[in-house]
């Protein structure tokens, strides 16, 4: 699944560690989500969406929206 986390983080001028502190996850975990190595659970995806004040689908893209 692709996501805009890195882009949104850059807009706020946050480092991976700073974003991790906001989400209460480690810097390595932020990196794993940004690079697509790990897809977050629904509760964590909601937390990310609320932090950036955007709907989940504006941050995460499973590639199905364009196909439908």
């Amino acid at each position: 699944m692709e996501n805009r986390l890195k882009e949104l983080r850059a807009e706020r001028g946050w480092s991976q560690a700073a974003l991790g502190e906001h989400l209460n996850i480690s810097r390595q975990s932020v990196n794993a989500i940004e690079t697509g190595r790990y897809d977050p659970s629904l509760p964590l995806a909601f937390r990310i969406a609320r932090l950036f004040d955007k709907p989940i689908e504006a941050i995460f893209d499973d590639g199905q929206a364009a196909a439908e």
Partner: protein
Amino acid sequence: MSATDQFAEITPKQAAKKYVSRVFGASLGYIGAVFGVSFLIDDGDPVTVFTIMAALLPGIFIVLMVLALWKYLSEMDEVARHDHSRALLIAAFTVLGLAGSWGLVELYNDAFPRIPVFFVYPAFFGVYGIVACMLYGRKA
């Protein structure tokens, strides 16, 4: 462990610190127990309830180390838990495969050395540690 654990008050750094302190304490207890039991029991001593109980004493600290890891798994964030769980499975399958295979070799070949079952524990944690570093430390 629930899907909402990552929202707990404890931070990843605090969880790691607590884990290290728990394991450090259990390790000190283990070393002390091994030295104590080695001092109390000699090779030629007869088997008694005392020697069996004393020999089990270091095992208590091994169980405490395993419980510390279990607690850490519940306190780490979900990404780390995912990687550590995979590392634990890989370690379990690797050690099960090796121990099972070696056991059969021992069973059918008297010339092969007997490896004490005790070594399953350090082998498991050795493989787990290496794999966890490889999985969680990788960039993408």
